[in-house]
């Protein structure tokens, strides 16, 4: 049983999707129990395999017993890094399942079984991407997760969402095709598709490793993955696709798709081409870190310009992707950049989940789409506010939350690697996040004068006006009970759980970082 864990992990949601197709289409009430059982199973499997990896070392799994050298088998590999990513994915999809009960936050109630089928197939794709040990299988699994996410995004009733989904299909397919093209060039030179195999060939055969075709392959693969993760010049599809889709979809895709793509980039860098091969190229590291700096700054500035909550969060994702890519490309001698980037994958998945869940609840309960709609939020929904505040503080990087520690490790990497521009960009971005979220807190706590709703330039006036507003609303307490406008338990549970995980990740950052550094141990210092 234990040695079959990777296969169980990927196949359980497939069978779950089939069961929903069989029974859920007859009676939509059967959907949720099936989904929650399968995803609980995958959650347990993910943690079991992580435990297995950290006690006994890397798990290599060959489907059907077709061992590597044939180059045609399905190879699944769980190592110290992707075991953590797997756990993050499993936790996020498990929590979002509760949020999706009775399609809370989603606009269309007719398509419940279809939604759950796509949702579980998306899980298959995400788990598969994380543990695939073969470059071509990775392409197929990327396409599985992309196709399901196109469907999930297009399910919304908003016409903008439909058009955004179409643009996402175009961008996503071009990205995946670039990746496939890169794999083709790599296959041309090495004659292998297996990641480990390619890694050994590139490490031992210098004629192959130095050929232009391999460099071109790396660039194609990198650009393909960058499109998928919405890295700086290629993020055009993300804000529309994620802000106009149903809330449940946004809560799943926003925390996972970009982070899993970042993990794929790290895996391609370390597991396929190898650390030494990537960083032997003069100037690449500087170029990508500068791109990351622009990503961070432009994401932050654009987030500041948004009036809609979800769009603001989407631009924050663009900035966060910049953090992680920059961290992975710093190439400091002690690998703090890599450590920070991997820790930030976990932290950011939880922070984004928390904020998007909160935004989904606001949209459903208060009809709040604009930031200015959040007036009086803390009084109306105290529990939701707690979750939102924890997520926001983590995004800013306030100490007990995981957001602080991931920034700490990234900045340490930036300093040791001598990339001061990256350090400065991180600090500026933190400041911008602070401005963003404290503006929201201010509106939510004190209320806002309509004329100044989006103007953050006049702090004094806003404070005065806010104080008046606050006293006015203080005289009119809400009618029936404190929790009367609070979100239902199925929506509150994932939000508060995500907030708790943010705090736990932060408090226990030491052991987690020790695990990451243990997995990175084999890397040479440059």
């Amino acid at each position, binding site marked *: 049983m234990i040695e079959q864990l990777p296969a169980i992990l990927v196949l359980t949601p497939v069978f779950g999707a089939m069961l929903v197709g069989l029974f859920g289409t007859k009676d939509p009430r059967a959907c949720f129990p099936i989904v929650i059982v399968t995803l609980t199973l995958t959650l347990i499997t993910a943690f079991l395999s992580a435990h297995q990896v950290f006690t006994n070392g890397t798990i290599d799994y060959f489907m059907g017993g077709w061992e590597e050298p044939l180059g045609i088998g399905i190879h699944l590999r769980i190592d110290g890094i992707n075991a953590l990513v797997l756990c993050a994915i499993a936790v996020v999809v498990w929590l979002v399942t509760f949020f999706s009960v009775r399609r809370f936050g989603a606009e269309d109630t007719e398509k419940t079984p279809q939604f759950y089928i796509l949702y579980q197939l998306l899980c298959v794709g995400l788990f598969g991407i994380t543990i695939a040990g073969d470059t071509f299988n990775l392409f197929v699994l990327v396409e599985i997760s992309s196709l399901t996410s196109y469907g999930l995004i297009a399910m919304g009733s908003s016409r903008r969402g439909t058009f955004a989904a*179409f643009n996402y299909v175009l961008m996503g397919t071009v990205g995946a095709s670039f990746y496939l093209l890169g794999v083709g060039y790599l296959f041309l030179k090495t004659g292998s598709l297996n990641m480990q195999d390619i890694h050994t060939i590139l490490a031992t*055969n210098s004629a192959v490793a130095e050929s232009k075709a391999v460099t071109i392959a790396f660039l194609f693969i990198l650009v393909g993955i960058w499109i998928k993760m919405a890295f700086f010049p290629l993020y055009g599809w993300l804000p529309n696709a994620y802000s106009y889709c149903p809330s449940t979809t946004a809560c799943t895709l926003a925390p996972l798709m970009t982070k899993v793509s970042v993990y794929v980039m790290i895996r391609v860098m370390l597991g396929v081409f190898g650390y030494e091969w990537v960083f032997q190229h003069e100037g690449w590291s500087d170029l990508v870190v500068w791109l990351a700096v622009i990503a961070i700054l432009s994401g932050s500035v654009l987030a500041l310009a948004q009036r809609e909550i979800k769009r603001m969060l989407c631009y924050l994702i663009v900035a966060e992707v910049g953090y992680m890519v920059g961290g992975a490309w710093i190439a400091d001698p002690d690998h703090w950049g890599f450590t920070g980037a991997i820790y930030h994958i976990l932290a950011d998945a939880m922070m984004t989940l928390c904020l998007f869940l909160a935004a989904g609840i606001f949209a459903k309960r208060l009809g709040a789409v604009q930031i200015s709609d959040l007036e009086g939020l803390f009084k109306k929904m105290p529990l939701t506010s707690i979750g939102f505040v924890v997520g926001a503080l983590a995004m800013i990087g306030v100490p007990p939350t995981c957001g602080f520690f991931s920034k700490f490790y990234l900045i340490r990497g930036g300093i040791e690697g001598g990339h001061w521009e990256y350090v400065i960009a991180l600090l500026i971005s933190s400041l911008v996040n602070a401005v963003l979220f404290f503006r929201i807190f201010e509106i939510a706590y004190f209320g806002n004068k309509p004329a100044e709703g989006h103007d953050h330039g006049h702090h004094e006036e806003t404070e005065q006006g806010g104080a008046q507003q606050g006293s006015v609303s203080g005289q009119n307490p809400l009618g029936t009970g404190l929790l009367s406008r609070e979100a239902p338990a199925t929506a509150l549970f994932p939000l508060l759980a995500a907030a708790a995980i943010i705090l736990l990740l932060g408090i226990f950052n030491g052991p987690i970082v020790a695990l990451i550094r243990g997995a990175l141990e084999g890397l040479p210092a440059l």
Partner: protein
Amino acid sequence: MDFIRETIQPHFNFWIYVILMMIGLWAVIAKNNLIKKLIGLSIFQTAIILLYVSLGVKDGATIPILDHHAEEVEMAEHAEEAEHGVELVPGHEIGPANGGRHALADTIANPLPHVLMLTAIVVGVATLGVALSISQMVFKEFGTLEENEILEQLKAGNTDD
């Protein structure tokens, strides 16, 4: 003529694949009609399939099916190599990385890229299906498939908000 003979002719497949890919990419970026964009996307994917299929091709090679009679003939022809043990490992014949080449490697086309492309074609068809159904939804919502008209409608909607 020399340019054609020396540069284009030996790599004809690759030239065509690059040209097709550029046509596809241009259509995806520049065309205004959503269906034309999808046609471009399809051409783009087909170009990559052409690249992969070209990788498996060898001059004078046959289909990769183990025929016992043919195998005996080959064995006789390559008696020397046969002594070192002939085994068919289709994935590893091309490229210098593998060190020594197998005895039958030159007579059998590499089937692996073709198998991969079967999967990629299926993926491409699925993508096209999803994209076409989404474009149908777009048509229902906007009543048009021209990108500029859709963007105008979206802009008009923006000012209404």
